[in-house]
Each structure stands twice: as structure tokens, then as C-alpha cells.
């Protein structure tokens, strides 16, 4: 298993992107998988940083495990209970340009880019689990 810890600060995304480069080399991931991982993880981490209301010193942990051809990614944060799969606003992908609402796009992307996404509240932590066939 590979893992990293990020502080609750948007600048830490650079560490996330470096981590995904490591995964790319370690697991010989093709470009479209790397692209999808970057996007799904950026959206998940950005959501936590923007909405968890935690101090910058707080830690977000990401664990990645590969079993056969499935990458399983767990993101753990210490924020108040928040299930992004149910509590985020639904994404608007059909309205005309004037009426288009912009909320919920991040979660929508995560659901579409990953094969399986689930949420659990474990103790005092939010756990978002994303699986992707590689």
C-alpha cells in the first residue's frame, strides 16, 4: 500500500500530483488513467479543503492499494460527517448557458471518472473510497 498525508491547504495539491506521478511509475499507468486519477483526487481533496472547515494544520490521508487490475483509493479526513455522494448539490449538466448551475460538478466528475465510489463514516473520520480498473 502507498499513502501520503496532506495538510488542509490548497497548496498541498502539488504533493498530491507528485504522488500520482509516483503511482504512474510504480504501476505503469496509461495516460488516461493518470488524467482521471488527477482529476478525481483533485476534486475530492479540494472539496475537503473548501468545506471541511478544519484548520490548515489538519491532515488528510490518502491510501492507495492495487489488487490485480483494480486501484483502490481511500481518502480520510477529520471534518464533520459529510457524505459528498448524498449531501453535495446535484450537478447541472443540461441547462442552457444562462441557467447553468455550477455546484456539484466535482462530485459528478468523481462518480463518472471512477468505477465505484462509496462513503463511510468511521469513528471521527469521513472515508471516501474510489475504485478504478487500470
Amino acid at each position, binding site marked *: 500500500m502507498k499513502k501520503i498525508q496532506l495538510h488542509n491547504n490548497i497548496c498541498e495539491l502539488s504533493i498530491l500530483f507528485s504522488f500520482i506521478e509516483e503511482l504512474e511509475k510504480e504501476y505503469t499507468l496509461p495516460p488516461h488513467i493518470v488524467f482521471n486519477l488527477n482529476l478525481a483526487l*483533485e476534486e475530492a481533496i479540494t472539496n475537503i479543503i473548501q468545506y471541511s472547515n478544519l484548520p490548515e494544520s489538519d491532515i488528510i490521508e490518502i491510501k492507495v492499494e492495487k489488487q490485480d487490475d483494480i486501484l483502490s483509493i481511500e481518502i480520510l479526513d477529520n471534518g464533520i460527517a459529510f457524505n459528498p455522494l448524498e449531501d453535495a448539490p446535484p450537478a447541472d449538466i443540461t441547462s442552457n*448557458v444562462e441557467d447553468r448551475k455550477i455546484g456539484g460538478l466535482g462530485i459528478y466528475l468523481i462518480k463518472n471518472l471512477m468505477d465505484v465510489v462509496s462513503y463511510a463514516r468511521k469513528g471521527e473520520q469521513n472515508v471516501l473510497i474510489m475504485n478504478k480498473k487500470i
Partner: protein
Amino acid sequence: MNPITIYIDGPLDALHLKDLQDKVDSLENVEGQLVILECAEMTYICSSGLRIFLAMHKDVTARNGKLIIRNLQPLVKNVFDMTGFTQILNIE
């Protein structure tokens, strides 16, 4: 009137949004202008990047201009398709 072209290079992730926003904010009179976002070198876009594109489209259109997005790379284009942005923006 010559079009205004904005070139976007590299990833448009949350760490690079400000670069694009600064370019957009520095645009002077776009009244009735054709504004081109040249994206051949843009390797990635996050949802906040999409929001900037949408805001620009609305702003330029409201000023009787037209915003055209050119040369999206295939993986980036896929994000526009997935989110329905292909239907509402001018993509060439």
C-alpha cells in the same frame, strides 16, 4: 477588429487558476470582440477551470462578443463532454 487570443499552457488545476484569471482580468475592452481561448497546450482542467470558462463565455456574450475555445486535447475534451459544457460553449 482582430480577435483577442488567450493561450493556456499546461494543467489548469486549482494551483494554476489564478494565472488564467489574471489573464482574463487584464483584458480591456472586449465589447463586441471575438475572444479565442487557444487550448492546444492545455493538458488538464479541473471543475474550477470549467467555471472560469463558463464565466468568460457569459461575460463576453453579454458584451456582444463571442468566445471560442480551440484545439482541446482529447482527454480535456472528454471532461467538457462529460459535464455537458460542449453543448453550451463554442468549441472548435
